């Protein structure tokens, strides 16, 4: 790209970015204090280009809820920047708008049987139903009223119940094994998420349920609560408190009871995706200006000489004391590798 073309491109780009800013209503210091020269504008734009903001999928109520949630998980404090400065919410928004949200690499064949059914249960497991929100209503079969599970390649045949927990004897030792009718995977395990909706829908339902729960038990929207209560609400999710606090049991589509979604599964996603937005490469929209990497001491793709430090991996890998490197991003690496501008 010639310099002239680049300047023209920047002029167009700046105008477009300004428009987007006005629409999003968020204050982002795009150009810093000095806009007197084009070079400064270029420098500042390059600095912020990966985090020009705006949302691809999160609705305004979801944005308003999720911002304080991620800031509760990684607060900005005296030790350094947090989820707010890292732009974690943009990372999550872009993930929800792409493969992660579409469950693009998930196996979605039916039936969707919930995990953690105890052996003491006397009834065979039945497939989960999660009433999709209006965004997914098109998946409803108008004739039967049934909701089609995402993917839905399986036959949903009846599940046999094969018996109670076994006892094994070896060398005079009796092993009585507490198995359930289904496995009891840890939260976050790949056999734990057995929902018949994709991850965008999982978040849509769960975010609404989180807000409803906050209103019902903490007397206000999540964003209006004290910091201590905000943290407590997410801890409640981790312990599945919304389910136990609701009495009598909620109907299947009662969002305050998280429907059939385990609140702890959502707490895991919230916490995991927040840390991912803080520490993954800025190319995904979070970790703005690599503040997360600066905080943890991560190097990104600076292998010791990215900024001319003159250090080598072969030395750094056998060192007995640490050397902090200024992090570099994947985009910077590619720019340098291709020798491009």
């Amino acid at each position, binding site marked *: 790209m010639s310099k002239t073309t680049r300047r023209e491109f920047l002029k167009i780009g700046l105008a477009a970015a300004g428009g987007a800013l006005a629409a999003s209503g968020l204050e982002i210091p795009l150009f810093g204090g000095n806009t007197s020269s084009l070079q400064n504008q270029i420098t500042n734009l390059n600095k912020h280009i990966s985090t020009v903001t705006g949302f691809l999928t999160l609705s305004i109520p979801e944005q308003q809820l999720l911002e304080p949630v991620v800031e*509760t*998980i990684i*607060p900005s*404090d005296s030790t350094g920047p947090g989820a707010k400065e890292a732009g974690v919410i943009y990372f999550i928004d872009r993930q929800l708008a792409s493969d992660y949200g579409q469950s*693009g*690499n*998930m*196996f*979605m*064949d039916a039936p969707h*049987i919930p995990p953690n059914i105890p*052996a003491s249960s006397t009834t065979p*497991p039945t497939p989960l139903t999660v009433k999709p929100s209006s965004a997914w209503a098109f998946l409803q079969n108008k004739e039967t009223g049934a909701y089609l599970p995402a993917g839905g*390649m399986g036959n949903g*045949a009846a599940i046999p119940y*094969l018996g*109670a927990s*076994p006892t*094994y*004897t*070896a*060398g005079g030792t009796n092993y009585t*094994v507490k*198995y359930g*009718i*289904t*496995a*009891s995977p*840890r939260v*976050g*395990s*790949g*056999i*734990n*998420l*057995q929902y018949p909706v994709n991850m965008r829908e999982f978040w849509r339902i769960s975010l609404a349920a989180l807000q409803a729960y906050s209103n019902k038990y903490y007397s206000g929207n999540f964003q209006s609560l004290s910091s201590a209560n905000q*943290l407590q609400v*997410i*801890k409640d999710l981790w*312990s599945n408190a919304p389910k136990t606090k609701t009495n009598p049991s909620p109907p299947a589509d009662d969002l305050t009871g998280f429907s059939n979604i385990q609140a*702890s599964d959502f707490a895991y996603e919230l*916490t*995991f995706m927040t*840390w*991912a937005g803080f520490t*993954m*490469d800025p190319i995904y929209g979070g970790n703005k200006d690599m503040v*997360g990497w600066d905080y*943890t001491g*991560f*190097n990104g793709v600076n*292998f010791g000489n990215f900024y001319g430090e003159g250090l080598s*991996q072969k030395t*750094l*890998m*056998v060192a*007995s*004391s640490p*050397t902090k490197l200024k992090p570099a991003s*994947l985009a910077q690496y590619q720019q340098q590798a291709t020798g491009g501008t």
Partner: protein
Amino acid sequence: MSTVIQENPVDVVCLGVGFMSGVVATELALAGNSVVGITKGPYWDYVNDYSTTKYDEWGVGLGRKYDSPLPLQSTTIRNNINQFALPVRRYTMPIQYHALGHGVGGAAQHYGGGMGRFGPWAYEMASRTASAYGSGFLASINPQDDTHDWPLTYAEYEPYYVEWEKAHGICGNYNGSPTNSPSDINYPWMSRNYPLPPHPMTPLGQLFQSTVQGMTAPNGQKYNPFPTVSALSSQPYTNQYGVTVNPCVYEGYCAGLCDYACETGAKANAAYRTIPAAINSGNFTLVTNAYIFRLELSPSGNQVVAAHYYDAQGNDHRQPGKVFFNGMWGYNMIRLMLLSGLGTPYVYNSGAGTGSGVVGRGLTNGYTPYRGTSVSGTVNIGGNSYPAGNGSGGGVSVFDLMDDNFSHSSISPPFIGGGLFGAGGYLGGGPGNITFAGGVSAPNTLNPNGAMGSAFKATQQNKYLPTKQSVGATPFAPDLPTFMNYIDLDPHYTDAYGDPVSRLTYDWTPNTYNGATYLVNQIKAILTQMGATNVTVGATVAPYSAHNDWWGHHLRGGLRIGTDPNAGTATAWAALSGYNQLYYNSNTAGVNYFAAGEITNTTGNNATAGTHAAGPQSYRAAEGIKKYLANVATSGVNYLAS
């Protein structure tokens, strides 16, 4: 799909193109035979596919973008037959960091390069245990024990180990055998050293080495430390097939908890070691993006006559051949045989605690339970734990706590085997931005707010810049075959084409846990001698107190080599009994028994891949196929019946 597309007949059809098929295809093509290799993924090119995009923990490490897509196929897991088996829905991050491979090289695109030999004991585990401790000893440890010897001894496999190590450019310096001679009945002696020197040693590795050299092992002799064996080339190298190999550049996006593809080809893999030679021979045809779904049998049912696969458009291709070598990943190999009606399916008789049939029998797991008895301490050696180094170099190991290298006769609770213990792998073997407690942990006594809030955040500050490090282990003795762990076809879930996926019925066996109580105390003595502070042994974890919710973790077994037709399916040549044409091997199936309970120390250095023993077995299979083509296929003389 009404029309079947006929492909030209060839001598050898390789199903899957990973480590095992790489050897067989290359050996047979160079011997002048026509060979076809079929893989469901692409032929990855490290220069174009990895060199500028792989430094991406989200996409490659956690998102597994170079691995097998789950919408195509998955598997289901249950812990015993009383449960409904749940399908694996996603590559959860990073609790289950091992995925199926996809394309040429297979799962070797994403290992840390751990590699090494089994010892002699591993091949004769059942008979040596019975001889040393009594015939009922194994059964007194594991309910429904189904352990058997390999058909051949270590000495018979040793020449194949040498060929395997030459082909893949393995780095190390002998194996810790006190004399390195065949008279070592326990330690894996070597007739020839590894072709490449080890990677540079870390300060912790040096401390571990000098410490254990002065210590007496449980067998009454000094420990014999050796550099941890690595399949990541330490120098430029050319193997016996004329394939040139680039050395490791130590950029550190290698292992960690997520395992990365290699951008220089230093990480041993069929795509960069064997397949290029097969292609150069002019006798090899590579078919990519082809999903094998059936083996076609002869009318009498005793011969495989063709493999069927879908191309990317869903067309059914028919590939005939004289010999079929199944080098697919473990349970995919079993699944294909069950779908095709090949061999006798294993059937578990829970009432009797036994089973019959062989295809799917003897599933074991080379990876440790996620919860076990642990020991740890702190040493005042800092370093850089951001990416710097590689996934399997830098450390030092000992065999002296493994196999039957010490007496197990008066240990309680009883166990057999032990573990390869080592320390000092590169701190920066791979990025680990979200690795605390298996991803993100729930609030617990240690962290009342879990991975949330200012107090936890502070634990992450400068976490890549440690001024001291934790050392320790959660040791386990090997998982052994039992009648209750196996693979079959799932009755509910199907792949994208409507065929049943595989179902794993698996849980860790008591032997894995029992060894920990003894081993932690041996390791505690080493840590103390190393000058570690705060050396602490954790609470004992009892068998069956944590259940498997993982998949794909170094699973082994399911189609065992053996001479006893009631226990193993294949002959010592790796031919399926009764089906002389079909040779199988994969990084799980070839390994019907294993020796090393793998120990992960806090540097994240653990031995990987079932290639430890399947690799040599692939050379054995190649030799058997050559004999078959020379004798059976031409003159009808059956050399391989037993």
